[in-house]
């Protein structure tokens, strides 16, 4: 017989656990932060914010990499009565999308002073900071020095036949990169690139992380991914190198983080404090020093040797709100078709 | 008129007619066996008497009062002063022997002390007082029968309905139980209505019998008289194989 006391304890515990403390009715001294930036990078920053300000922060993390139905959907669904005060997004395209859906609220942070506004919404619905860049990762055992690809278009070369890979262009930063190529090259050249990639035996993998793994283990010689993925492999001393994709030419796709206030969030004042904290030079420095190896957007923030300062790169000029619109069309059109054909 | 009276009682489940126009009387003190082949409606008749089921047609009276009418139970089972030992005994497996008897008494308005007394007495009467703290699953078949009997007797019924409770028991245990019930019925003044396939069980416990065939009464009356000129094949075969000494004993 299961002791009655046990049953009572379990039920009491459950009720207690599910009750007020677990509810979303957040106490006034708490800020709720949704983040689609990987937990390993976002949590230490949030914990430091709590320590430095004494404000309690509750973090809900998702990752675009693993293609969950995710926080962007949750934010859209919660629009009429949001639970979040702030959304810390891994890329500005989804930020622009949320703005177009009326999820965000404008906030002109005092920390904007001294920051370049290239990566920030003109109406301050979202603010770009610490950035990643799209890179071509290569296996140093398979690609000789001087033979590294410099442009994504190099992946169509015969020397990389059957040796190149990229993540599913419907998701994450790869989708942003793909859309940027359509914006920069035009529809015809961009479709030629994707068709050529397939024709050259290029492989579509499930995520940027998978691209990193497969290049690291030598299954593929080159792959398209992000700086943070490369940095993980570099820190683990894997035989890989990286080049900023199209650094000479059409420019490298820069993927800044984007932080935004949620329209109608429960604690807007605390939300603002969190945004100010995030835009602080110290936070950008911390993110540069972390495994994410992100490039500070603010000039003059010191970075470790393995992080290239943003002003040393040639960013691809991009209109993020337009990219967001274009991405939705492509996700329902060419890219969807391409992903379908290349699924196996 | 005392006892159970069935007047033109029929019972059907959907299109399937189980009992057809039964008119019978079970008088107090007349231990009666209800015999017949499988599916002839014996158990259904017992359930009608107990009030577990309603007749489709006809009426059942107890001591002259109507207790069941078509689609209506007028007097609920626990107010009929009947008790029943089910075919599968229906012992509540998670309760102890004492727990089974006590819960069986919970429908009666009794003082706690009296309830405890009755339960203990019923266990004593059935010879299982030493098993009071055991669960049914840990008992032998014969012991389980006695628990079911104790639970039934604890409520001090006027009618004890037995629905083939002895099938599966070895001969010695079965005969002991039958003898015990017969003497208890005499001592406690209750009437036994026994449903069984086996005329030997009927012979040991009852003086009266009813045989059913295809939902109808084939014959009824004192068992000895029925055996003298049996109409049903069941009693005919039984009579032909009954040892002479046994008839002398009765």
């Amino acid at each position, binding site marked *: 017989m299961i002791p009655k006391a046990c049953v009572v304890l379990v*039920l009491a515990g459950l009720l207690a656990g599910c009750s007020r403390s677990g509810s979303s009715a957040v106490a006034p001294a708490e800020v709720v932060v949704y983040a689609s930036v990987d937990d390993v990078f976002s949590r230490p920053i949030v914990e430091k914010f709590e320590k430095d300000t004494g404000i309690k922060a509750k973090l809900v993390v998702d990752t675009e990499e693993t293609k969950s139905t*995710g926080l962007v*959907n949750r934010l859209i*669904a919660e629009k009429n*009565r949001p639970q979040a005060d702030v959304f810390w997004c891994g890329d500005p395209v989804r930020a622009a999308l949320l703005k177009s859906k009326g999820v965000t609220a404008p906030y002109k942070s005092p920390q904007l002073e001294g920051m370049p506004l290239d990566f920030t919404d003109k109406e301050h619905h979202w603010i770009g900071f610490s950035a990643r860049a799209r890179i071509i990762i290569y296996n140093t055992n398979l690609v000789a020095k001087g033979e590294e690809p410099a442009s994504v278009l190099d992946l169509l070369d015969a020397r990389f036949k059957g040796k190149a890979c990229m993540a599913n262009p419907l998701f994450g930063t790869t989708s942003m990169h793909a859309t940027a190529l359509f914006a920069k090259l035009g529809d015809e050249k961009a479709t030629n690139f994707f068709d050529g990639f397939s024709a050259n035996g290029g492989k579509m993998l499930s995520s940027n992380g998978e691209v990193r793994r497969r290049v690291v283990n030598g299954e593929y010689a080159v792959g398209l991914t992000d700086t943070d993925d490369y940095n993980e492999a570099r820190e683990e001393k894997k035989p890989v190198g990286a080049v900023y994709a199209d650094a000479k030419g059409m420019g490298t796709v820069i993927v800044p983080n984007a932080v935004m206030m949620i329209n109608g969030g429960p604690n807007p004042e605390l939300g603002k404090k969190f945004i100010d904290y995030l835009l602080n030079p110290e936070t950008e420095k911390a993110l540069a020093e972390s*495994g994410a190896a992100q490039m500070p957007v603010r000039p003059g923030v010191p970075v470790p040797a393995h992080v290239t300062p943003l002003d040393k790169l040639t960013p691809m000029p991009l209109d993020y709100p337009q990219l967001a619109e274009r991405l939705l069309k492509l996700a329902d059109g060419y890219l969807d078709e391409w992903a379908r054909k290349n699924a196996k | 008129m005392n006892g159970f009276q069935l007047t033109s009682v029929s019972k059907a489940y959907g299109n399937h007619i189980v009992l057809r126009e039964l008119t019978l009387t079970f008088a107090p003190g007349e231990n009666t066996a209800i015999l017949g082949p499988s599916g002839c409606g014996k158990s259904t008749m017992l359930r009608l008497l107990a009030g577990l089921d309603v007749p489709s047609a006809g009426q059942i009276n107890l001591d002259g009062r109507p207790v069941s009418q078509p689609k209506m139970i007028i007097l609920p089972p626990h107010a009929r002063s009947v008790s029943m030992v089910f075919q599968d005994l229906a012992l509540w*497996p998670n309760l102890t022997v004492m727990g089974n008897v006590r819960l069986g008494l919970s429908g009666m308005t009794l003082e706690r002390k009296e309830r405890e007394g009755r339960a203990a007495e019923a266990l004593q009467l059935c010879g299982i007082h030493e098993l009071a703290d055991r669960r049914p699953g840990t008992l032998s078949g014969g012991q389980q029968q006695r628990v079911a009997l104790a639970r039934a007797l604890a409520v001090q019924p006027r009618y004890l309905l037995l629905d083939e409770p002895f099938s599966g028991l070895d001969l010695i245990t079965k005969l002991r139980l039958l003898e015990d019930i017969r003497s208890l019925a005499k001592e406690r003044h209750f009437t036994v209505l026994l449903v069984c396939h086996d005329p030997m069980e009927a012979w040991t416990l009852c003086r009266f019998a009813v045989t059913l065939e295809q939902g109808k009464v084939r014959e009824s009356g004192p068992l000895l008289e029925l055996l003298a000129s049996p109409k049903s094949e069941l009693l005919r075969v039984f009579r032909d194989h009954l040892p002479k000494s046994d008839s002398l004993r009765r």
Partner: protein
Amino acid sequence: MRNTLRTNSTGTWRWWGAIGIFGIALAPALPLFWQAFASRDGWLAGRGFPSALFNSFQVALAVAALSLLIGLPLGVATALYEFPGRGSLLAVVTMPILVPSFLWAIGWSALTAHLGPDVTAALSGHTGCVVVLLAAAIPLVLWVCHAATRNISGSQIEAARLAGGERTVLKYAIAHVAFSGVLVASLAGVLTLADPGPGLILGLRTAASEILTSFAARYDFNLAGRQCVYLTLAVLMLAIPMAIVAAPRLTAELLPRQVRSGQRSWHASVSWVLALGLFAVGLAFVILPWLGLSLPLTQSGHWSRALQEVRRTWLDTVIYAVGAGSIATILGFLLGFFAGKNHRLQVVSLGVALALFAIPPSQASLGVIYLSTNSPAWTDDLLRSRLTVCFALSIRFFPIAVVLGMRAWNSMSPSWAQAAYLHGVSPVRYGRMVVIPFLAPHAAIAGLLIALLATAEIGTVLLLQPPGHGSFPLAIFTVMANAPEGLVASLCFLYLVLATILLTGVFSLARRRLA
């Protein structure tokens, strides 16, 4: 009192009760379904959806067939024979039920990446999905066939043994449980339809991954809603006829009867073959992907960070698991009560439960978000709390509770209630003293099983967790893309160890309570 204790009684109240329970289970998904068809896009399901649906059904069919082929003989044999290493082999084979499929997919992916491109190519697409999804389908079929075999009486087995030895025993038992096996294998096939993970990781466009793409890449809730409905309808079309055919056999074979089960025997060759067979299944579907997950541990483990994650999330994980298990069990057992011995209602309940399984959990979760967003703040304790997560998880696994609940209720003899009625025992007292204690161990096992399954569900927790209250598997999910491989491997390793411990607990409880 009369009606309550007369368990055979039919009546419309049973139907209304069942409709009410299914209504509760369906309610969260309904707003999105409605919205999906009311939108101006009409009835479109997206260009690629039919082919993705076709892929899904191919995978489901393969999973059903192979899980039957492997699970049925193993289930029968484990019920009939003793074999060396029984406890540990069964625990290993059962483990995939408790682990999110994406972990196995990643494990395979990591292992094949290590073994080279040929192996990777061999284990991608259809094949990869089938291998990953089989891992959880096999134990499901195995255990149901095991239970059905235990319902064969000892004397029947002995008669078969006398007639033709072990071969006849096995043939007889397999024929006896085949129908239950087919049914549960189909259920396992249906379960795969709602799982997008393996398809995405191993490169196959399935209906579930298509739905996910509609949500996550196109942010088109209406399209996703319509796709969910089409998937559910497709399953329903298969499930209802199957339930009609299956229910009578199910009650005859799967539902317990009061029989003396045969003692498990030791037979030298059969026992060793069985042990080897189970080992092979464990190796192929559990140990190898586990190896893949653990490979990075050979270089670096991040144990302190992993333990920190466990400390941060264990309480919420337990609350979600216990809550989901309790609510699903209550709903499932209530449905079992309403279905009673009503054959038609049992058929309908099984069919609907099967179809409910096919609804992707994100659909219900987003429905709950809509509901909570459009409700006043005072409903937050109900609609935006950990209780909400528990509820959403419970309706995901409620169909399992339905089957187990119906099984438990059917194992109660109707004469128990009749005896209580005859003795004038009040229904409340009868319920308290007989029904609840009798059902409690069955409910505990159902609750535990669902709790374990719910632990492995990620999507629901991600969408509905109150801020700051994530679960442990979700923590793995959110770090696995970019965290150091050693950390991911440490987290996965800890999860698998904890799952093994929990599983051992369930086994010992089940053995003690239902022996």
